[in-house]
């Protein structure tokens, strides 16, 4: 659509110009910590903090009949249109449209997207600029404008826009304070993940979608779906239709179409779904449908390394999954492999001897063979760190090492040229209820990596919601608000989050964001409880708990 090109570039130039004018005061750290009940509060309550922003002192009113003016080559994008509808519903009370006829400062939100390529891949451009000011006649900078290179950047901008819209209880209108706003934003890390575990407890599709929705509020962008583990195998695998016999019940299952639906739902929020099959350990449930995968009836883990059938099944699972999960990364697990069953089962032991393999050697053999299957399907393999710790030098060079046991692994992995994801359990495991939000917040993914050339090998980080004690009843309150603390660490520039005295600088804004999650119906737990997921200690304001 050539006619749209020119205005976009003019807008972009103008944005840059405005940003330069105001850039001297534009760093993320510059936030006021005072909070007041007044609607003229000068504090900045955005989460995560944008890379650059400036603001003024005006108050703008926003029309409840706000319309989207989607321009540029993506002007038909249903992803943006649907997102706009979602955010409009979040911003305005359901009764707000009744009867008011007054003039509003903002009645149209302009969204300009310069690419119509909606492919969602790791590192997709999520940057955006947001201008929010009074509409001026004769100015090409209209009242409210989001510019982005991709629709996914536009989604991030819409989220930020929604957080600037505040309901005024006196005028009963939605307003934007401290306008005009100029925001230029992009993520620090490309991979900002949250792991869900649907094997220890089944999570209904509705619940998974609600988690995805909440992720989008914090600009997290990877749902790591730990689908299967020892306890249950809930996913349909058409090639081996007996695998999901190991679902807890016939109702606690995901059909292939359900998985497609989840991937599609996530994509519409700019969120990748990284699927996992954790091999060769954590796979006991596989043998319910196919007992040959067990080394024997009474020794059921890890998967039988000696049988070709084992790798046929893995290959088929991955082939089936490849159709569902377009994300370029696939998680193969590889953690906590106890090889005793291999040692103790006659036919496996024999096979080991034949192939001149120790059990450790067989573990490596298994992982590398599984990696090759994934690579042949055009996937980048991700493995838990034990694989690197045990035989890192032999891992496929494409491997992404997924840290979890403790600090210091990514520095070693990137030193060897591997990419890495940080999930150090001491700070980023959500099932560890004794980790306070401050630890989630202050955990620095690049710690210990001095060679800046290696920084880009750290793709980002991920918080993990292992669900031995998490089901529909408590999963959201265990995830939030702590996952949001990590989300800011992964999104905002280092200098914005490397602050001292969190209670002064970050806590009020973090509490505000937790209340925002509550207002959107997300069961985020109180911020200041000593243990996560605990009920509020007594009556009080959301903003102070």
């Amino acid at each position, binding site marked *: 659509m050539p006619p749209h090109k020119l205005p976009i570039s003019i807008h972009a130039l103008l944005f840059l110009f405005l940003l330069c004018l105001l850039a001297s005061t534009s760093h993320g750290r510059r936030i006021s910590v005072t909070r007041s009940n007044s609607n003229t509060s000068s504090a900045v309550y955005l989460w995560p903090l944008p890379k650059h922003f400036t603001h003024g002192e005006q108050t703008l009113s926003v029309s409840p009949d706000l319309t989207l003016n989607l321009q540029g080559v993506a002007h038909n994008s249903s992803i943006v249109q649907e997102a706009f509808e979602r955010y409009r519903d979040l911003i305005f009370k359901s009764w707000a449209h009744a009867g008011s006829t007054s003039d509003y400062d903002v009645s149209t939100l302009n969204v300009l997207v310069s690419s119509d390529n909606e492919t969602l891949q790791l590192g997709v451009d999520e940057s955006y600029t947001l201008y929010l000011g009074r509409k001026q006649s004769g100015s090409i900078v209209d009242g409210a404008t989001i510019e982005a290179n991709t629709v996914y950047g536009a989604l991030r901008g819409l989220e930020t826009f929604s957080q600037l819209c505040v309901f005024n209880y006196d005028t009963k209108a939605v307003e934007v304070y401290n306008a005009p706003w100029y925001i230029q934003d992009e993520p620090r890390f490309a991979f900002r993940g949250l792991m869900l575990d649907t094997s220890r407890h089944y999570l209904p599709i509705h619940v998974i979608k609600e988690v995805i929705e909440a992720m989008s509020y914090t600009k997290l962008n990877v749902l790591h779906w730990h689908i299967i583990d020892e306890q249950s195998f809930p996913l349909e695998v058409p090639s081996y239709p007996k695998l999901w016999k190991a679902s807890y019940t016939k109702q606690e299952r995901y059909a292939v179409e359900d998985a497609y639906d989840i991937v599609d739902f996530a994509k519409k929020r700019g969120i990748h779904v990284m699927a996992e099959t954790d091999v060769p350990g954590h796979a006991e449930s596989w043998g319910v449908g196919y007992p040959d995968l067990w080394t024997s009836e009474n020794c059921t883990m890890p998967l039988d390394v000696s049988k070709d059938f084992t790798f046929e099944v893995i290959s088929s699972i991955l082939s089936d999954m490849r159709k569902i999960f377009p994300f370029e990364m696939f998680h193969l697990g590889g953690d906590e492999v106890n090889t005793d069953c291999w040692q103790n089962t006659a036919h496996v032991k024999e096979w080991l001897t034949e192939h001149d393999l120790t059990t450790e050697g067989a573990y490596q053999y298994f992982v590398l063979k599984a990696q090759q299957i994934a690579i042949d399907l055009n996937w980048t393999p991700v493995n838990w760190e034990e694989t690197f710790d045990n035989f890192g030098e032999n891992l496929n060079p494409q491997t992404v090492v997924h840290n979890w046991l403790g600090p210091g692994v990514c520095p070693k992995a990137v030193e060897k040229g591997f990419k890495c994801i940080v999930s150090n359990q001491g700070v980023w495991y959500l099932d560890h209820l004794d980790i306070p939000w401050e630890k989630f917040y202050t955990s620095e993914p690049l710690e210990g990596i001095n060679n800046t050339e290696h920084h880009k090998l750290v793709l980002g980080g991920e918080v993990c919601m292992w669900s031995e004690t998490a089901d529909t009843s408590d999963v959201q309150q265990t995830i939030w608000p702590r996952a949001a603390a990590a989300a800011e660490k992964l999104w905002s520039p280092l200098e914005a989050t490397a602050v001292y005295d969190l209670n002064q600088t970050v806590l009020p804004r973090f509490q505000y964001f937790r209340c925002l999650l509550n207002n959107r*119906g997300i069961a985020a737990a109180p911020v200041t409880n000593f243990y996560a997921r605990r009920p*509020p200690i007594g*009556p009080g*304001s959301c903003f102070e708990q």
Partner: protein
Amino acid sequence: MDCISNTRSRLCFVLLFGNFLSSFVSVHGLNLWPMPKSANHGSNTIYLSTNFQLSSHGSNYSDGSGILKEAFERMVNLLEADHTTNSKFPNFSVLAGVNVVVQSPDDTLNYGVDESYYLNIPAKGSQLYAQIEAKTIFGALHALETFSQLCYFNFTTKVVELHAAPWTINDLPRFPYRGLLIDTSRHYLPVPVIKSVIDSMTYSKLNVLHWHIVDDQSFPLEIPSYPKLWDGAYSYSERYTINDATEIVRYAERKGVNVLAEIDVPGHTLSWGVGYPFLWPSQSCREPLDVSNEFSFKVIDGILSDFSKVFKFKFVHLGGDEVNTSCWTTTPHIKQWLDNHHMNESDGYRYFVLRAQNIAISHGYDIINWEETFNNFGDKLSPKTVVHNWLGSGVAEKVVADGLRCIVSNQDKWYLDHIDANWQGFYTNEPLTNISNPAQQKLVLGGEVCMWGEHIDTSDIQQTIWPRAAAAAERLWTPFDKLAKDPEQVASRLAHFRCLLNKRGVQAAPLFGFGRQVPSEPGSCYKQ
């Protein structure tokens, strides 16, 4: 039960030992919650058309407000439970839709509205339609809920199935008042959260949301007549506009749920004085409301006047519990006033409650008061009073013996904030205990489970309410002779209902243990 491995045998042991699990994971059983008055079924499986239709041949209800259409669409969404259904369903035994026949054209949700329904689901024939017949639209809504609970998504065929057809169900509630209290003063609950609580109430056919709006800690609601009252909110944004309240009532009524608003006077009112300090006996003694000041009653009148435009339910709740009158006797001007009127502080309490009752009556309300009012001066209460039990058992029988109406909420069994009250206790708590006279039985309007909010906010409200509130809901809905004497007999069915709530996104906690327990270990929803 299949215990697939050694490592899982521990779980198997626990389950067998706990005698908790029988064969209820089967999708064929009668897993309705609450249990209908009568339900007969066959043994055929039929399949729901992916183009499931609503029709209303023979109905007098025009659905001008879209209540039925919306309810039907909600139900279809729930049936599919986010699954993608296969459009190549079998070409036999297909249920094409549901025909809803409603007698009354009126969709005003009055107290005691007829909630009965008849549901018939055929098993054989072409162009099968389920038939729902109800006196009012609100009976039809219950029928749709029942229907939805008969349907299962078959993960293999990707078709929504209905087992054990044909079905004939006749149903009506045992009690007209089946309530749940929420408390938005101890913690503010955002409007979407209140709406989700209302949604979840309809799944167990509860029909009254008792909104304890205001208390000591905060005054979140806008009162146009006295616009400074909501200065007592926790914060600028932890508030409800009057439009929010209107929207909540509208939302609830369209789902067959009445909203009972409460202002608790004269105690539990500290937050009122933030905006109007004259309501306090003095700056240093702030509760109860100043009985000697006409302004106290003017404000109550203003509030109830505003309420009457928003809360259309027959009843308003005036609280009246836990009144500590020591501020009245220690504050000179009030002590003087009491003396002048030849009252002691107990008389002052009675005077206050009765005067507030009269104000409510003048705005067209019947009154509900907590039981202390009855315990202290029951003979003086307006005959329009409904006494709301909470302190313990044995109150209802005295109330109805005195000819007053009663709602049961004895705290030992039906207070949801009592985390150690288990679902078995919720299930077995009988509102008509020791009341055998049919005329007196009629005076027990029903019961209510109470979710006091000291430790309840958005993060944990649903998991604290459910599934225990559902156990009480069956007690209040199902005919007495169909209720299980031993709650363990319904454990599997309640577990099934809890999983249904989960599937619908409601954060209902495991049945095992006390309220709000997290699951203790990995396992199936149906077994925890």
